[in-house]
C-alpha cells in the first residue's frame, strides 16, 4: 500500500522585505513525483541544498507545497483539519539531538507527544513503556537528557515519535552530529523498528554505509530526483554519482575501478564479502605472488625535528579527593615539524582535553609540553617592552608569513617542490632543521625547546603559534562581515589594521574563499563556507601548528573532500604542522603520517597509520575500528590472498589488486604456453 505519495511536488523558499514584498524566490524542490510503500526502508541521498530536508518537512506538513500535492495515507497535507492526524502518524527526528528534546527527564520527553494529542494518562504510560522498550532505552528512563550520549539522545527522540504510534518515521540526517558508535546505535535501532514493528522509515543521510541495507535509495540533486532504485541499481552509476559530487561506499568504488581495469567483477558490489568472493576467483593464492607495491614513507619521518614534545602529561580532576579522575594520564609523544598527526579515540577518551593543553587553554596537573617554533622570540613576557612591540618584532621575523604570500610564485619556480622557499629568502626549512637554535632563541634560555609551563611564558602567544580550530567552529563567528571576522585573531595579536587585513585576505584565499565573499555576512554563507571562514580566522594568525578538531563533522561528502583538499594543500605548500582529531579511520589512514590513539585518557598506541591499523583488533576493543580497506585486506588474507605492504586508500588498493592480477594472468598464460610447447 502506498503510504506517501507526492504528485508534481514543488516548493519555493520566499524571502520578503519588511513590507512583505517578495525579494527572492528560490525553488528548493521541483516537480517531484514519488510514492513510498508502507513498511519499506527508503534512504534519501543528496548533498546540502539538494532539497532533501525540504522534502522531509513536506511529508510531515511542516512545510506546505507551493505546487503539486503531498498525500500521506491519502490525506492531503494542505487540508488543515487533517494536519494533526498526518503529524500523528508521521514522526520526525532531526539532526541536532539537543534541539528536539523538550523535557528534562527521558520518560517525560517520550510522553510529550501523546500528551499533545490528548491520550488518557494510563495509555500514555503504556505507550511510553513500549516506545522506550522499542529503542532499548528503558534503563535510562529517569535520566536527564543532558547526561546521555549523542546516540542515546537520538534514540530518545526516536522513542518520542514511536510513542505516537506512527506509520512512518522521517529521519533528517539523524547521525550527522554523532560519533561512529552513536551512528551505529541509531541505525541499528531504526532498522530494528522497520523489521519488528513494520514502521516505514525514510532516512536522509550523508553516510553511504548506512544506505546499503535499504530497500530503496533516492538521490536528489538541485531539487529533483535524479536516481531511484535499489542500492544495487543506484550504486551501479558510480560515474554519475561522482559527477553530482556524491560518494559511493568504498567497496563499491573499489569494485568499480577494478571492473574498469578489465577485471571480472560485476557492477555495484555493495559488501566486502561479495567483493572477496569475486576476487577469490581471479587472484593467486601462492605466497610468491606479492604485489610490488611499496608505500612511500613521508620524508620527514626520518628526520627528528619535533615542533612539540609532550612529556608525561596528566590532567586530573579533583585531585586528592575520592572523586579523583584522570582526563589524561602520563601522555608522552612528539609532533614532528611539518607532519600531519591524527588523534583518534572514542568520545571521552581525552582527545579534546589533550588538544586544549597543546595551546594552553587547559593547564596540565603534571608533566610538560615543550615547543620549538621557527621563531620563539615572543613566547616570553618581557618587562619594559610593550607587548605590541614584541609582536611586531615577531611578525617581521616570521618566515611562515612570507612563505604563505610568496607560495604561489615559489611553487611555479620549483614545480617539484624541493625547495619550498625562494632562493632570496634568508633561510629555508632545511637550515632550521640543521640548527634549531636560531636568533629568536637568544632571548630564551639557550636551548631550542621551551617548556610552556616555565615562568614568564606567555600563553596568549602560544595560542597564536598553535592554532586550534574547534568542532563546529562556525558557531564562533560574530562579526558583521567575513573579512572583519577573520581579522579578529590578527588584531588580538596586536597587528595594525592594514596588516590584519592583509593577513585576513591571504587566509581567506588559502581556504578558497574569493573576494566576492569578503563583504558578506558570515551568517549568509552555507555550512561548509562558514566553516572555512572559521578556519581562515585561525590561519590568519599564522600558526605553525594547526589543530583541527573534527573539521568535517556534519559536512556533506563534497564539503568533506573540499576541506581535506585545502588542509592538504596548507600542509604541502606552507609546511604547516597539522594535528587532525577525527572519528573517521578512513580519513586518518588517508591523510596522516602519524597516529596517536587515546583511550580513557591514556596513550595506547602511536605510530604510522600502517602500524596502528595492523592492530585493528585492539582498536576494536577500544570501541574504534579500522579503515574499510584494512578490513578488506584481512578478509582477503583469510582466503589466502596476501598483501604485505598495507595500502590504505581505495586508489592504492585498486592499484595493488590490478597489478597483482595482471602479473598473475601474464605468468599463468606464459605457463600455459610453456606447457603447451612441452606437450608438442
Amino acid at each position: 500500500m502506498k503510504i506517501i505519495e507526492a504528485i508534481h511536488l514543488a516548493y519555493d523558499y520566499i524571502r520578503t522585505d519588511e513590507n512583505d514584498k517578495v525579494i527572492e524566490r528560490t525553488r528548493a524542490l521541483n516537480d517531484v513525483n514519488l510514492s513510498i510503500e508502507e513498511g519499506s526502508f527508503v534512504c534519501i541521498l543528496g548533498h546540502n541544498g539538494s532539497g532533501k530536508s525540504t522534502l522531509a518537512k513536506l511529508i510531515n506538513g511542516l512545510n506546505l507545497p507551493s505546487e503539486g500535492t503531498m498525500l500521506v495515507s491519502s490525506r492531503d497535507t494542505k487540508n488543515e483539519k487533517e494536519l494533526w492526524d498526518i503529524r500523528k502518524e508521521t514522526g520526525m527526528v532531526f539532526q541536532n539531538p539537543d534541539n528536539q528534546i523538550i523535557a528534562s527527564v527521558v520518560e517525560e520527553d517520550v510522553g510529550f507527544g501523546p500528551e499533545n494529542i490528548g491520550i488518557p494518562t494510563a495509555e500514555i504510560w503504556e505507550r511510553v513503556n513500549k516506545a522506550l522498550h522499542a529503542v532499548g532505552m528503558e534503563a535510562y528512563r529517569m535520566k536527564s537528557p543532558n547526561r546521555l550520549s549523542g546516540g542515546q539522545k537520538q534514540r530518545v527522540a526516536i522513542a518520542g515519535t514511536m510513542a505516537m504510534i506512527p506509520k512512518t518515521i522521517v529521519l533528517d540526517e539523524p547521525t550527522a552530529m554523532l560519533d561512529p558508535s552513536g551512528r551505529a546505535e541509531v541505525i541499528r535501532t531504526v532498522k530494528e523498528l522497520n523489521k519488528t514493528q513494520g514502521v516505514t522509515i525514510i532516512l536522509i543521510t550523508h553516510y553511504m554505509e548506512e544506505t546499503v541495507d535499504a530497500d530503496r535509495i533516492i538521490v536528489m540533486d538541485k531539487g529533483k530526483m535524479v536516481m531511484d532504485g535499489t542500492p544495487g541499481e543506484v550504486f551501479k552509476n558510480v560515474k554519475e554519482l561522482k559527477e553530482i559530487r556524491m560518494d559511493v561506499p568504498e567497496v563499491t568504488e573499489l569494485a568499480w575501478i577494478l571492473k574498469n581495469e578489465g577485471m571480472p567483477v560485476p557492477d555495484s558490489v555493495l559488501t566486502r564479502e561479495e567483493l572477496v568472493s569475486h576476487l577469490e576467483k581471479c587472484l593467486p593464492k601462492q605466497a610468491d605472488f606479492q604485489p610490488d607495491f611499496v608505500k612511500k614513507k613521508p620524508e620527514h619521518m626520518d628526520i627528528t625535528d619535533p615542533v612539540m614534545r609532550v612529556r608525561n602529561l596528566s590532567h586530573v580532576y579533583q585531585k586528592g579527593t575520592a572523586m579523583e579522575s584522570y582526563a589524561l594520564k602520563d601522555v608522552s609523544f612528539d609532533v614532528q615539524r611539518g607532519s600531519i598527526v591524527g588523534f583518534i579515540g572514542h568520545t571521552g577518551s581525552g582527545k579534546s582535553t589533550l588538544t586544549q593543553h597543546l595551546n594552553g587553554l587547559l593547564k596540565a596537573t603534571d608533566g610538560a609540553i615543550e615547543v620549538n617554533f621557527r621563531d620563539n622570540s615572543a613566547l616570553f613576557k618581557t618587562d619594559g617592552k610593550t607587548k605590541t612591540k614584541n609582536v611586531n618584532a615577531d611578525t617581521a621575523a616570521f618566515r611562515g608569513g612570507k612563505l604563505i604570500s610568496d607560495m604561489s610564485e615559489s611553487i611555479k619556480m620549483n614545480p617539484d617542490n624541493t625547495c619550498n622557499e625562494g632562493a632570496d629568502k634568508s633561510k629555508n626549512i632545511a637550515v632550521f632543521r640543521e640548527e634549531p637554535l636560531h636568533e629568536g632563541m637568544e632571548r630564551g634560555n639557550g636551548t631550542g625547546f621551551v617548556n610552556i609551563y616555565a615562568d614568564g611564558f606567555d600563553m596568549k602567544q602560544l595560542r597564536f603559534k598553535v592554532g586550534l580550530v574547534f568542532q563546529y567552529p562556525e558557531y564562533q563567528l560574530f562579526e558583521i562581515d567575513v573579512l572583519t571576522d577573520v581579522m579578529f585573531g590578527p588584531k588580538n595579536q596586536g597587528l595594525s589594521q592594514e596588516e590584519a587585513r592583509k593577513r585576513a585576505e591571504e587566509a581567506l584565499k588559502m581556504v578558497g574563499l574569493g573576494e566576492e565573499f569578503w563583504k558578506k555576512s558570515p551568517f549568509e554563507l552555507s555550512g561548509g563556507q562558514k566553516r572555512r571562514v572559521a578556519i581562515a580566522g585561525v590561519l590568519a594568525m599564522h600558526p605553525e601548528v594547526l589543530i583541527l578538531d573534527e573539521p568535517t563533522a556534519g559536512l556533506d561528502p563534497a564539503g568533506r573532500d573540499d576541506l581535506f583538499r585545502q588542509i592538504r594543500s596548507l600542509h604541502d605548500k606552507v609546511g604547516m604542522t597539522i594535528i587532525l582529531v577525527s572519528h573517521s579511520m578512513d580519513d586518518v589512514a588517508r591523510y596522516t603520517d602519524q597516529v596517536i590513539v587515546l583511550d580513557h585518557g591514556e596513550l595506547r598506541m602511536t605510530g604510522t597509520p600502517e602500524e596502528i591499523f595492523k592492530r585493528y583488533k585492539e582498536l576494536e576493543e577500544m570501541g574504534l575500528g579500522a579503515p574499510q580497506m584494512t578490513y578488506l585486506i584481512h578478509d582477503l588474507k583469510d582466503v589466502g590472498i596476501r598483501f604485505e605492504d598495507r595500502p590504505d586508500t581505495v586508489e592504492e588498493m585498486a592499484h595493488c589488486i590490478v597489478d597483482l592480477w595482471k602479473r598473475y594472468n601474464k605468468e599463468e598464460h606464459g605457463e600455459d604456453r610453456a606447457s603447451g610447447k612441452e606437450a608438442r
Partner: protein
Amino acid sequence: MFREITLGQYYPVDSIIHRLDPRVKLMGTLVFLAALFVVNSWTMYGVAALVLAILIKSSNVPFRFMTKGLKSILVLLLISVSFNLFLTPGEPIVQFGILKISREGLEIAFKMGIRLVLLVLGSSLMTLTTTPNQLTDGMEKGLGIFKKIGVPVHEISMMMSIALRFIPILVEETDKIMKAQQARGADFESGNIIDRAKAMVPILVPLFISAFRRANDLAMAMEARCYHGGEGRTKMKPLRYAGRDIIAYLLMIMYLAACIASRFVDLI
C-alpha cells in the same frame, strides 16, 4: 566557570521529598522563605537550619551537590555580609581607619549570612527534587485561577520548563565559545570595564545566534510532535494530592505558626 550553577538541575534519585506534589513543594519553599524573614532569634535560625537539614537528609541529595549552588552566590553573599558588617552603627569592637565593626553589625551580618545561605539551600532543594516539568505543572495548576482572567498560564509554564532545560546546554555552549575565542587570542581578563564589556561581544553574538537557532529547531520539533498549545492536552503525570501531601501542608502550617509565634514570645 559556569558549571557550578545547580539551579534548575534535577537530581534524579527517589525520596519522600521527590515524591511530594510539586504544589506542596512550591508552597513549602514559599513558607520556608517567608518564615526566614519572620524569625529573628538565634534559636529560630537554629530550628530553620535543623528543619532544612532534616529535609535535605530525607531528599537523598548529597549535601555536597547542594553546596555547589552556594558558590555562584558567594560574591553576593560577601557583599551583603560586608555591607552589614561595616555599615551598621553601634558599639565598635574592632576599628580599621574609617571601617569599624560593631557588635550589632557583627550580629546582623552573621544573621544575614545564615539567612541567605538557608534561602539558597532551601530553594535549590526544591529545584533539585522537582523536575522542571513537575515544577511548571505545579505552577500551571496552582496558578490555574489566573487563567480565567486571561493570563496564559500554560504558555508561561511551558516557556519556563524549556528555559530550565536549556540552561545547562547554553552554559556549556558559552564555555565552548569562550574557549574558541580565547584560541583566537581574545582576552577576557585584562583591561578596564569598557574593554571587558567589549570583549563580551564575541561571546554574546554567537551565543544569541545559537539560542535563536535552537529555538527555531525546537519549535519545529514541537510542532512535528503535534504541540498546539495547552488545549486538549492530557498529562502523563497528572497532579493528585496524596496523604503525604496533606501531612506536609499541616507541618508547614505548624512551622509557620511557630515562627510567627516566636516573634511574640520572648522566651525563645
